[in-house]
């Protein structure tokens, strides 16, 4: 840790700048969290502490809609993250362990390009693609679209991790009579594990959170949590939306914490 003369905290304006940034980032989240406990049908007037909107989410008039949307979101995120992480792991192994091959730079570009393409373009393209092959829109189209766009997100942390693993570990394993498969499962995979877990969590969150692409490729009647919330908000914001948002926030915090703990628990120490 750099301390003393070049400590960034000594720069003029450091503290106000920090406070300003943190406020801008977190004030809206804090407001939503606090008002989710408001005992009022209005979203702006505070009328005392209550958990009625949380109860409303689970038993209220919209509860069935939200429950089925949440279940869709969860299963899609789970499957999409698992499949895309598997594909990304194999892609990273191939890209980084195959040595220099022609079109390697192109391959890398192709994998990472979706990160830079505006999401609306991907959404329109995916919709046109499903229409042109006559795929009926519904749960499956959402799932396929999510698997596809989650791959680059899962790939990045896995590839970054893999780049730091020297070839010599696998060579040492082969030298010590391991088969290629054993070298992969016993040596490479455990060393890649933190990257794979990060990739999975990232893909999971990205899928859970996606609105634009989902909204394009979903069929009538099939909702994920973001599209259900959006649909609900169109008829005016009710406090139950804030309760759902707060719960999503809590899930995110848990995921980020897990991700942090995983990166901390380095299996080499």
């Amino acid at each position, binding site marked *: 840790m750099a301390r003393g003369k070049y400590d960034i905290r000594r720069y003029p304006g450091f503290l106000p700048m920090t406070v300003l940034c943190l406020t801008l980032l977190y004030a809206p989240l804090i407001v939503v969290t606090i008002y989710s406990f408001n005992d009022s049908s209005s979203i702006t007037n505070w009328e005392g502490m209550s958990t009625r909107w949380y109860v409303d989410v689970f038993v209220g008039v919209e509860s069935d809609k939200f429950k089925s949307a949440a279940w869709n979101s969860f299963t899609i995120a789970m499957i999409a993250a698992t499949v895309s992480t598997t594909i990304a792991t194999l892609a990273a192994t191939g890209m980084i362990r195959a040595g220099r091959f022609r079109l390697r730079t192109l391959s890398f570009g192709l994998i990472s390009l979706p990160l830079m393409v505006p999401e609306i373009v991907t959404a329109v393209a995916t919709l046109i693609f499903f229409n042109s092959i006559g795929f009926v829109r519904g749960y499956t189209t959402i799932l396929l679209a999510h698997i596809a766009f989650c791959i680059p997100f899962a790939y990045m942390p896995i590839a970054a991790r893999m780049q730091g693993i020297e070839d010599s570990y696998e060579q040492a394993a082969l030298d010590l009579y391991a088969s290629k498969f054993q070298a992969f499962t016993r040596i490479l995979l455990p060393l890649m594990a933190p990257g794979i877990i990060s990739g999975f969590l990232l893909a999971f969150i990205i899928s859970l959170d996606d609105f634009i692409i989902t909204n394009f490729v979903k069929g009538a009647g099939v909702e994920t949590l973001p599209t259900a919330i959006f649909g609900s908000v169109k008829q005016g914001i009710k406090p139950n939306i804030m309760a759902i948002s707060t719960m999503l926030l809590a899930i995110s915090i848990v995921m980020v914490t897990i991700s942090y703990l995983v990166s901390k628990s380095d299996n080499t*120490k």
Partner: protein
Amino acid sequence: MEKSAPDTATIAVDVRDAVKRYGDFTALKRISLSIRDNEFFTLLGPSGCGKTTLLRMIAGFEDVTEGEIFLFGDEIDTLPPNKRPVNTVFQNYALFPHMTVTDNVGFGLEMLGRTKAEARRRAGEMLELVRLSQFAGRKPAQLSGGQQQRVALARALAPQPKVLLLDEPLSALDLKLRQTMRYELKELQRETGITFIFVTHDQEEALTMSDRVAVMSSGELQQLGEAREIYETPHNVFVADFIGETNLLEVSVDQIAQGRATCHLGGGHELTCDAVEGIGVGAHVHLSVRPERLFLSEAPTEAESLPGRVRDNIFVGTDIQTIVDLNEGPRMTVRTSNSARGARRVFEAGSAVYVNMEQGAARLLVD
């Protein structure tokens, strides 16, 4: 450890006409050499000479473009690394960072299908051999460089390979540790009776540890022999220059009679030395003479004496290095042992001296 009777006649590794090409670049130009069972064999050469390539070909990490490699009579050059009964100590050790020291050392046996219990027991023995038993439960990152080095050795020795390959294993250690490890490696080789093939660019390492040394340069074998033989009777200019320090003088051969060659060098100096096959009258070649086989005197002696003037004295601990400019001729370095100071006096800079060569010290070399 079970130990077969040392049998110098048995060939452990036989490399026959091995060629390695990467596209247009030829890394190894048709190398043939036989490494005996139970010997400490060193591949020595500057970086890029092909020594590591040859080692990796024996280990199985590089394909052989042409030629064959035999291990105790069996051709192994087409086998994958995990089918060759040889193990490697890597330059950066390549210890598996997520496994404990014991699991690292036992890994090879486990992969050979032994039980976990047996692998652990054997790992324990090996760790005792390298005196690291108290670190058995640690991860490699919690060990010092020298300890990691010994774990790497134990891991490679645990499956009892027929040949142990060592790829510059000491280069990452500091000088003091490197010197200790040289001795330990040599001891370990004697105790285990396993053939060691050691790759290094450090000629001192090669001379101190090896039974035999193969000197390589630009993909070719320059000379193969015992350490002393290579030092004292180098075959060519490269070997003489690369191994130890030497005075390399350009000479012309004037006359050859009764096995002695009379040569002259710059400044009109003349001397005679043993004639060498392949170097005839009129040849312009190099003459090598080790600095420690020269001595200084005030007047010419019975030996080959060349007049000159002392330019400088450099104190290098055990020796004094005297730089002498031969009259109108080349510069030479003379080493005088400090313990001999009483017998052989030190001449101050500027004094006129004679540089004398011990019997048989000067060698004519082909380029």
